[in-house]
């Protein structure tokens, strides 16, 4: 048996697989399909200080090999999440990551400092890369100086490790990654969705009410692989990889690129059992490699320190 456990700042995970933020609500819906304790971790929907209504509908559209979404960070707000959703998650033996969004650094700090006091919140993830809101969000994620300052501010008030979720909608993702590492980030999550649009041929108008949205799903996996491959060689903090994972082989590809853990987003919609089936598949797939622990495979696509070529049996 290959050891499937992975250990990241704040996260002692049974296996490297978790649902990605926004694709799993706060877990309740999927707890009706399987025991959430099977997951390596759970990353919940973005939380903002006050409740947010989000964008008008249609909010989703299918694309070749993927989908666009413009949910607009709809969530019930910090106090409801603290008093209801996060308490409910305490019944499961699984680390929880709270994804945080906001319009100002103060918004991020308020949520981070409040949720990090809860016993089952193991880490926070700063969503500085949401493409679907008018202010804040992506602006924090496209400027290295602003991204660093935000990270520093949150680190001062947050008592659990801080992961920063990077946007792929930048020219040089490595410079953003380095900046947030310098700002004290404990880890990185990447990638968020790519900006995209679809136009309805019948109306001549964009399909999404918001106009543009974030592209996710199988189609974006090569982008994620390339960016994780580039960033993981330039930083020393671990990466939670995501973007287009639909099966165990995809998860493995992100790990070989440089991810220490993997998040599954859109595939939960196609298959509510996506996470457990990827966990089972991964447990089988890693047997093909000559390693004792899955963590040994992280970054094997570029790690030249061991010159051994990885051979799958």
């Amino acid at each position: 048996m290959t050891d499937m456990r992975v250990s990241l700042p704040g996260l002692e995970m049974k296996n490297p697989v978790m649902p990605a933020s926004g694709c799993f609500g706060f877990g309740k819906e999927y707890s009706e399909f399987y025991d959430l304790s099977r997951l390596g971790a759970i990353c919940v929907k973005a939380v903002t200080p006050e409740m947010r209504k989000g964008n008008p509908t249609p909010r989703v559209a299918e694309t070749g090999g993927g989908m666009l979404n413009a949910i607009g960070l709809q969530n019930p707000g910090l106090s409801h999440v603290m008093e209801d959703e996060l308490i409910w998650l305490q019944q499961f033996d699984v680390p929880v990551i709270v994804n945080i969004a906001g319009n100002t650094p103060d918004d991020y700090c308020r949520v981070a400092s409040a949720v990090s006091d809860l016993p089952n919140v193991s880490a926070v993830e700063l969503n500085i890369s949401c493409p679907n809101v008018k202010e804040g969000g992506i602006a924090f994620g496209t400027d290295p100086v602003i991204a660093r300052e935000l990270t520093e501010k949150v680190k001062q008030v947050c008592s659990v490790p801080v992961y920063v979720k990077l946007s792929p909608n930048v020219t040089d993702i490595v410079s953003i990654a380095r900046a947030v590492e310098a700002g004290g980030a404990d880890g990185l999550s990447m990638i968020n969705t790519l900006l995209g649009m679809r136009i309805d041929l019948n109306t001549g108008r964009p399909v999404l009410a918001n106009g543009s949205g974030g592209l996710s799903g199988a189609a974006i996996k090569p982008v994620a692989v390339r960016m994780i491959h580039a960033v993981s060689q330039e930083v020393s903090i671990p990466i939670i990889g995501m973007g287009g994972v639909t099966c165990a082989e995809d998860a493995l590809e992100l790990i070989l690129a440089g991810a220490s853990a993997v998040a599954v987003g859109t595939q939960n919609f196609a298959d509510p059992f996506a996470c457990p089936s990827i966990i089972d598949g991964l447990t089988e797939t890693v047997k093909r490699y000559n390693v004792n622990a899955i963590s040994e495979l992280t970054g094997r696509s570029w790690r030249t320190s061991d010159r051994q070529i990885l051979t799958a049996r």
Partner: protein
Amino acid sequence: MKRIERMKILKNRPIASRIYELELEGDLVKEMKSPGQFVHLKAADGLDTTLRRPISICHIDREAGTFTMLYRTEGKGTQLLSRRQAGERLDVLGPLGTGFPVEGFSHQTRCLLIGGGIGVPPLYELARQLTARGHKVTTVIGFRSAEDVFYEDAFRELGYVYVATEDGSRGTKGFVTDVIDRHISEWDRYFTCGPRPMLRAVEARLGPDGWVSLEERMGCGVGACLACVCDEKNGSGYRKVCTDGPVFRAEEVVV
């Protein structure tokens, strides 16, 4: 625990212009009760489609262990679906959502069912369950043209049926609301499913004492992604079409 089942296709055949009747067999049928609920299905295996497609349950045959859906070919998913053959398996998630109520009505309630186009199918199981409980069902169904009409005879077995077509090639010329204005005066409860403009027109005429079934683009279909929300009528809240709906009290949501 909720499940997915690869259900067996018994029948998948055209019954009107671009309208197919799809019959599936499997264990999930045992869990199907409420008319107006839907299933979320994968039109094809593999990555051809990223998202599932929501389709209403049209007829439940619990004894045979089968259920029927009617769908109209629109885009990629429904076209792929129309090519599936009897004997193949289809990946089905469901039953999902909150359907139409059939309990708690007084004896022999006069039920008015109003459907437009591809909103007609869920009303069929509703009509069956209401008549089985002794209520009186009148159905008003609207289509674009005679070639689009389906299930008229099936509804006729369950009560009085009015058909409207926009071009007048069958039944009353015009919309379901023209039939209502001209022929319907007595009813106790109404139940409606169809395109938004029709739902709005129906609600404007008949008021809040009814149930409307809404359509919205979906991601997960189970309440997790917030793709499918609609606004509450009173207050600033929202409702999810996939779990709180698709059927709502007319007074509850903004149609």
